């Protein structure tokens, strides 16, 4: 995919020596947290009317950099200029006043308030609120930028995409000149993401500076004018999006080595049925039927909140099936969970890897024992020594950093924690594996490691992969099931290109 942007506005040379005054300029900005140098001499210019993507792996220092621009942290070294004037922000308020606005990954919206109230917060202009006038202003802005938001709506009733547009409205209302988006597509459907990109282009065309933080390569290429790569707190490269030949090229520039995103899939012959769901209905589920065989990956795709959660809870034994039948490893649901074996049966990689999958205050050995303790039990006692040995092996085999089993779960980064959880669950040699959003928030190399493991797991298990990432589903899965409002809208092999084309509309509930 290549970039689609107005041609001929800028050439490669003017990233560094433009005659245009940058809206924001960072010169040698550094920030240290204890032992860690989060930002190391960062120099970056942000120009009006352009979209700059900031690309980096987890922990590369993107968030720290943005927090300094938003006035939440002060730099330890270097300085920031806004429109040619040096500034030192003491608070977010000053950054807002200087025209810098942020859309955080976790929206900063009050769900219990209306759109108008959220937009107004901190910008009320007078003690007594003139709500009618404010609503009119908000509606006008929403129309002018084609955001389609009703000023009266309660934010809690809006979809994620709409909430994001409320965040954009906030910035437009404050007349921010620099709009910074932190992983804006993480919560959006593909269709919503497309309309976000359209909004970004329209704002950029009206002279706003846009900064787009992401680690999704395709979307960076499709929306950005220029790309800066952040690695280990330093800017490792800055170039125009048009200089990049392909996502693989960009991935190479990003991690500094080749990452195989086109994963080798060797075919595995499908074996016995390990999971059979027949006409399952219940809270959030409406007549769901599918089966899963050993040797295949079935991807369950859809916008979050369309029944995936409820389905996983039933399959993993957290909630009872309502009506219908669930057969796991050729046993009825109730029977299976009555006498479940820790090994050779069911393994689950929950979405919430830091909350459900692990206990943050326990070390890796104890976290290993969370799901495998029966394997280390001697009557009432646990063989902790053997558990430590196994934990050490797992950490080495799955390249978990830091490689110290005494480390507590919270000390690991998201990617390393996920690799550990995956290792632990594979140690149980499951025949049925449920993986929920296994690579959410992971960087490219961790994602690749997780994908390789899941593909390997097919040899002995059937894998139910619940994901919101379509490219992940299409890369890994043998078959895809699309969910919408608790129903399976379509179930087909990934080789069925005609059906695959329609996934987007199926996810939005369009059957035709």
């Amino acid at each position, binding site marked *: 995919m290549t970039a689609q942007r107005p041609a001929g506005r800028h050439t490669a040379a003017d990233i560094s020596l433009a005659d245009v005054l940058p809206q924001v300029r960072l010169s040698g900005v550094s920030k240290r947290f204890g032992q860690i140098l989060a930002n190391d001499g960062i120099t970056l210019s942000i120009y009006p009317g352009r979209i700059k993507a900031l690309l980096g792996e987890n922990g590369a220092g993107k968030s720290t950099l943005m927090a300094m621009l938003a006035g*939440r942290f002060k730099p330890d070294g270097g300085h920031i200029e806004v429109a040619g004037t040096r500034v030192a922000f003491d608070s977010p308020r000053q950054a807002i006043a200087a025209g810098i606005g942020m859309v955080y990954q976790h929206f900063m919206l009050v769900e219990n308030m209306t759109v108008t109230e959220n937009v107004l917060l901190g910008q009320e202009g007078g003690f007594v609120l003139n709500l009618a006038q404010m609503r009119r202003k908000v509606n006008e802005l929403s129309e002018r930028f084609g955001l389609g938001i009703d000023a009266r709506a309660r934010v809690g009733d809006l979809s994620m995409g709409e909430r994001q547009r409320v965040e954009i409205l*906030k910035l437009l209302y404050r007349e921010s000149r620099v709009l910074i988006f932190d992983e804006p597509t993480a919560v959006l459907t593909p269709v919503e993401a497309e309309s976000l990109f359209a909004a970004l282009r329209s704002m950029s065309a009206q002279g706003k500076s846009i900064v787009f933080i992401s680690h999704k390569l395709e979307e960076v290429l499709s929306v950005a004018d220029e790309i800066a790569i952040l690695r280990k707190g330093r800017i490792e490269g800055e170039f125009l999006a048009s200089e990049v030949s392909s996502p693989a090229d960009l991935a190479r520039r990003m991690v500094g080595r080749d990452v195989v995103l086109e994963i080798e899939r060797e075919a595995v012959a499908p074996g016995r049925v390990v999971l059979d769901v027949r006409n399952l209905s219940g809270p959030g589920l409406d007549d769901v039927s599918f089966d899963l065989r050993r040797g295949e990956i079935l991807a369950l795709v859809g916008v979050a909140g369309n029944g995936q959660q409820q389905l996983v809870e039933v399959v993993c034994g957290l909630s009872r099936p309502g009506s219908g039948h669930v057969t796991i490893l050729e046993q009825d649901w109730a029977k299976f969970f009555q006498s479940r074996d820790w090994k050779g049966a069911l393994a689950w990689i929950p979405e919430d890897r830091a909350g459900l999958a692990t206990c943050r205050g326990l070390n890796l050995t104890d976290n290993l024992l969370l799901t495998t303790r029966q394997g280390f039990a001697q009557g009432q006692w646990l063989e902790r020594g053997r558990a430590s040995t196994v934990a050490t092996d797992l950490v080495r085999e799955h390249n978990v950093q830091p490689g110290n089993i005494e480390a507590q779960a919270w000390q690991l980064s998201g990617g390393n924690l996920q690799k550990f959880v995956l290792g632990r669950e594979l140690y149980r040699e499951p025949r049925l594996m449920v993986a929920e959003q296994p690579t959410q928030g992971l960087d490219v190399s961790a994602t690749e490691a997780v994908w390789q493991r899941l593909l390997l797991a097919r040899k002995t298990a059937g894998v139910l992969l619940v994901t919101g990432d379509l490219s992940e589903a299409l890369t890994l899965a043998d078959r895809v099931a699309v969910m919408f409002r608790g129903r399976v809208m379509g179930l087909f092999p990934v080789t069925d290109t005609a059906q695959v084309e329609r996934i987007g509309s199926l996810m939005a509930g369009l059957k035709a």
Partner: protein
Amino acid sequence: MSPELVIALLAAAVQAGTPILYATLGEMLSEKSGVLNLGVEGVMAFASFAGFFVCHSTGSAWLGFLAGGASGALLCGLHSLVCQVFLGNQVVSGLALAIFGIGLSNFLGTPYVGQGTEGFSKIAVPLLSDLPVLGQIFFRQDILVYLCYALPVAVWFLLNRTSLGLRLRAAGEMPAAAAAAGLNPRKLRALGTMAGGFLCGLGGAYVSLAHMHLWTTGLSGGRGWVAVALVIFAFWRPGRAVVGALLFGGVMAFQLRLQAMGTNVPSSLLLMLPYTLTILVLVFTAARARGARGVASGAPAALGVNIEPEG
């Protein structure tokens, strides 16, 4: 019961409900900004003494009333210090405040036990007080009751129609959003707590200056605890707080009348009535809130959750 008696009972209910309404609205303000303050009982106890003391020594009922409010704000400033600066647990700090306020008022008030004060007397509102029934119930009260009629509207207006109210609610619902909008949610919470404490203090001073016209230990008589429960009953809405306060005022007045009339029911059972009602109300509210999912109950999303520093 004769009609006269019923009217007298209802008039007494309005008066008994007034301090509860002051305190309920005060606690509501505090909770709307995200701070659970279980210390209302202590705040009211201390303020009822402070109000009495200032009125007693200056002779000005109004100074006494304001002193009650100020002492309430001061005590709640302590709660803010613990919760906003030192990030102490709000429940523990609130309970400590309750015990502290009651103890302090008893300690300082011992020499004055049983002494009376002029305080506020009843003023009949011209014209309105001549209305049949309603006039006798609502418009032959003291001025603080009339003030209290306007208070729910004022609190509603502050919360929903002013920038300060918007900011306070943001601090109670999602402090991070307030911070991202360039506000200081901790300061807002301190402000909400202290403004709420001021109202609770006014409620306490009402008891000694306008209701009982004297000082004695235990004057607040559990009204503070009732106020905390009423905020939940009211779903954090000022209008519903009025209903709750009148209901409780009614039960309190009724129980006093019954005792005065000398029924066979043991007085300890009668004294229990308001608290039995409190429990019933909480059970009822919890059941309703569950039916309507948490959001509809109106509890601020970040109520009782302290704001942790970043980084």
